[in-house]
C-alpha cells in the first residue's frame, strides 16, 4: 500500500513515519512544501533524517495516486489536503482536531463520502487495552450507569517547538482546541456517540509565553450529555517544559456501582536520574499510535469504515467550538439535542 504523509507541521508526523517506514506492506511518501525552508525539523531535512522518500510538492504526491494519506498539516490546513486526497481516491487518516470549523469538517466528511474513501480522525487514546476494558465494563452494565466523569489531558506547550500551535488562525485556538477533543472522543466511545447538549469553559493565558494574543494555555471545560452525565475536563498545557515526560491523560468514571480510574500513559519505571538531575520517567502502557495505525491500514485495505470516523471527529469538534463560544459569552452554551440522529448507547438500566 502506498501511503503519503502530508506535511510535517504536526509533531505526530515523525511518529507515524517511524511506525510505518519499516513495514513490507507499506510504501511511504512524504511531502512538506509549506515548511519554512530553514527549519531542520521539517521538510526535506526531516525526511532525510527519517530515511523516507520526499517529494517537492502536493502535485507530485497526488500524481503518484497514493492508496492512503495521513494528514498532519496545521489544523486549519487539513481541509484542502483531505479534499485533494479524496479526489484521487485515497483513504484518509486526519490528525485531530479534524478541522477548526464545522463547515470545513462537514466538507471533508462529504468529500470522502462522495469519493467512497474512508475518513478516520486520529484519536489514539481509545485504542488502549485499559480503555477497552473500561468501555466493556460500562457497556456490559457491570459498573452501573455512569454518573459523571472527571478527566485531565495536560501536556507541554506545543507552541514552544511548533509555533503554529499558538496561532489562532492555524490552530483554531490553544489548549482548549488541542486537548479537549481527546477526552471528548473517549466520552464519545463511553456514551456510544451520544452528543453533548451543553458546554461551559473558562481559560487563561497565564502559562505563556509561546502563544499569540488571545490564545489560551490553560482551560477547564464542563460538558453535559442528554442522559445527565457530566464531564469535567482540564485541558491545560500545564506540564512544565523541563518535566521528564510530555504530559498525560487520565480519566475517572464515577458510576453507580463503582469508580474507575483510567491512565492512558501510566509510568512504568520511576526513580531518579542523577545525570539529568530530574525524576526518571519511563512510560508504560500500549503503543496507542501503532494500534491506531493498524485500524487505519486495515480499514484502508478492506474498504470498511474506519473508527473513529470523520463523524466522530465532527462530534468532538462541536464540543470544542461550543467551548470557544462559552469563553466569549461567559455562559454555558446549549447544543441541539441530537438524540434522534444518534440514539447513543442504551444503558442496561433503561
Amino acid at each position, binding site marked *: 500500500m502506498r501511503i503519503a504523509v502530508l506535511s510535517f507541521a504536526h509533531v505526530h508526523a515523525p511518529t507515524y513515519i517511524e511506525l510505518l517506514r519499516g513495514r513490507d506492506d507499506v510504501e511511504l511518501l512524504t511531502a512538506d512544501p509549506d515548511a519554512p525552508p530553514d527549519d531542520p525539523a521539517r521538510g526535506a531535512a526531516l525526511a532525510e533524517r527519517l530515511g523516507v522518500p520526499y517529494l517537492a510538492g502536493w502535485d507530485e504526491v497526488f500524481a503518484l495516486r497514493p492508496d492512503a494519506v495521513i494528514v498532519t498539516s496545521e489544523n486549519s490546513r487539513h481541509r484542502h489536503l483531505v479534499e485533494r486526497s479524496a479526489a484521487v481516491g485515497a483513504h484518509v487518516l486526519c490528525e485531530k482536531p479534524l478541522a477548526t470549523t464545522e463547515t470545513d469538517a462537514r466538507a471533508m466528511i462529504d468529500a470522502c463520502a462522495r469519493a467512497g474513501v474512508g475518513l478516520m480522525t486520529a484519536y489514539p487514546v481509545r485504542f488502549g487495552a485499559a480503555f477497552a476494558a473500561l468501555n466493556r465494563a460500562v457497556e456490559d452494565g457491570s459498573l452501573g450507569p455512569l*454518573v459523571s466523569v472527571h478527566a*485531565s489531558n495536560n501536556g507541554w506547550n506545543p507552541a514552544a517547538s511548533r509555533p503554529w500551535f499558538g496561532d489562532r488562525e492555524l490552530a483554531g485556538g490553544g489548549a482548549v482546541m488541542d486537548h479537549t477533543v481527546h477526552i471528548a472522543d473517549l466520552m464519545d466511545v463511553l456514551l456510544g456517540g451520544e452528543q453533548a447538549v451543553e458546554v461551559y469553559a473558562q481559560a487563561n493565558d497565564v*502559562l505563556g509565553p509561546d502563544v499569540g494574543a488571545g490564545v489560551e494555555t490553560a482551560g*477547564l471545560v464542563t460538558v453535559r450529555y442528554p442522559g445527565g452525565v457530566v464531564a469535567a475536563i482540564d485541558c491545560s498545557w500545564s506540564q512544565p517544559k523541563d518535566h521528564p515526560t510530555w504530559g498525560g491523560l487520565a480519566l*475517572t468514571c*464515577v458510576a453507580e456501582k463503582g*469508580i474507575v480510574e483510567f491512565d492512558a500513559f501510566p509510568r512504568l519505571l520511576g526513580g531518579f536520574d542523577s545525570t539529568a538531575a530530574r525524576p526518571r520517567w519511563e512510560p508504560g502502557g500500549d503503543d496507542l499510535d501503532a494500534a491506531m495505525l493498524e485500524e487505519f491500514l486495515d480499514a484502508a485495505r478492506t474498504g470498511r469504515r474506519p473508527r473513529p470516523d470523520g463523524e466522530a471527529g465532527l462530534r468532538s469538534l462541536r464540543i470544542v467550538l461550543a467551548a470557544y463560544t462559552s469563553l466569549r459569552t461567559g455562559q*454555558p452554551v446549549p447544543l441541539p439535542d441530537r438524540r434522534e440522529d444518534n440514539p447513543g448507547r442504551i444503558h442496561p438500566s433503561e
Partner: protein
Amino acid sequence: MTQLDVALIGAGGIARAHLPAWTTLGARVRVYAPDGQAPTLASEFGQAAVASREEAMDGADVVDVCTPTDTHHEITLAAVAAGAHVLCEKPLALRAADAEEMAAAAAAAGVRLYPGHVVRFFPAYARLHPLITGGGLGRVAVARFTRTGRYPTWSGWFADPTRSGGILVDQMIHDMDIARWLFGEVVRVHAHQSGHLTAPAPEGAVATGTAVLTHTTGVISQIVGVWAPPATPFRTTFHIAGTGGTVRHDSLASPGLRIVGTVGTGAAEGIPAGDFGESPYTTQIRELADAFAGGPEPRVGAADGVAAVRITAAAADSARTGRAVELLPPLAPEGAAA
C-alpha cells in the same frame, strides 16, 4: 490557657470529631443534642450531657454548633445572644443572607464567630497555602481539586438539599473555601450535580458535583465532589499549575502506614482523620480556642465563612438555573477583621 467552658450542640459525626479535641485541650464541655445521643457521646470522653440547650449554653465561653446546617443560623444567633463565642460547623448557613446576619450579630455583640473549615488544618492544605501565597508556584493558572467519600447515608439530613444544600454545598464547600483561600475572591461560578440528589438516599446511592470557579486574580479552579458507593475509601486530591511548576497531592498515594490482610474491617471511614500526627480537628480547635481566649486571629474567620456560603449558594443557583452565576465583590462586613 484558662479552662474554657464549652457548650457542644449536637452529638453526630462532627461532634464526635470535636469532642475529643476539646477534651484534649482541657475544656469543660456540656453536650446537648435534641436526638438524645448526648449522654452516650459525653460519657465516652468523660464530659457531661445536659437536658436542654439553655442548660448547655448557660455561662458557656464557647458554643460549638455541630448540628444540621439548616439549624446553624438559629442556634448561632442564640449563642451570640447568650454572649458566647461560636465555632459553627461548615457551612455557616445555606443562604448568604443568613451567614451575613450571623457574622454581623457576632461582631455587634463583640464575640468571635469561626466557621469549621477544617481542611485548612489538614497538613497538605496547610502546607499548600504558604507555598502558593509565597509565590512558590509563580503565577498560578489553573487548579483542580477532588474530594471523594462515601455517601453520608448514616444521617438522613445530608441527602436533603433543603437541610444540607446537597453535595455542592455540604461537601464541596471544603475545596471552594480552599480555592478562595489560595487564589482570592471568586467572581463567577458554574456548577452541575448528578446522581442521587434527594432524600431519602438509600445505602449505595451515588452523587457527584462539578464546579468551575473564576477568581479575580484570573486563576480558574475546578472542584469535583463525589459521594461514593459504600466501601470507597476517603480520598482528596489536588493539582495546581503555575509559571513556576506544578504541585499535586493525593491523600491515598503516600500513606505513612498501610495495612492489608484480615486485620482491618475494610469499611470506609465517613469522617477523615489525618495520618499519625495530631488530628486536624485538634489543630483547628486549638487555634480557635486560643483566639477565643484572646489570642491572635486564626487562619479562618467569619468573613471567610460568609464568602464560602456565597460561593456554594451561587453553585447551587447555577446547578438549578443552568447559568454561570456572577458574584459581586464582597462587602467588608461591619466590625469584621480585615
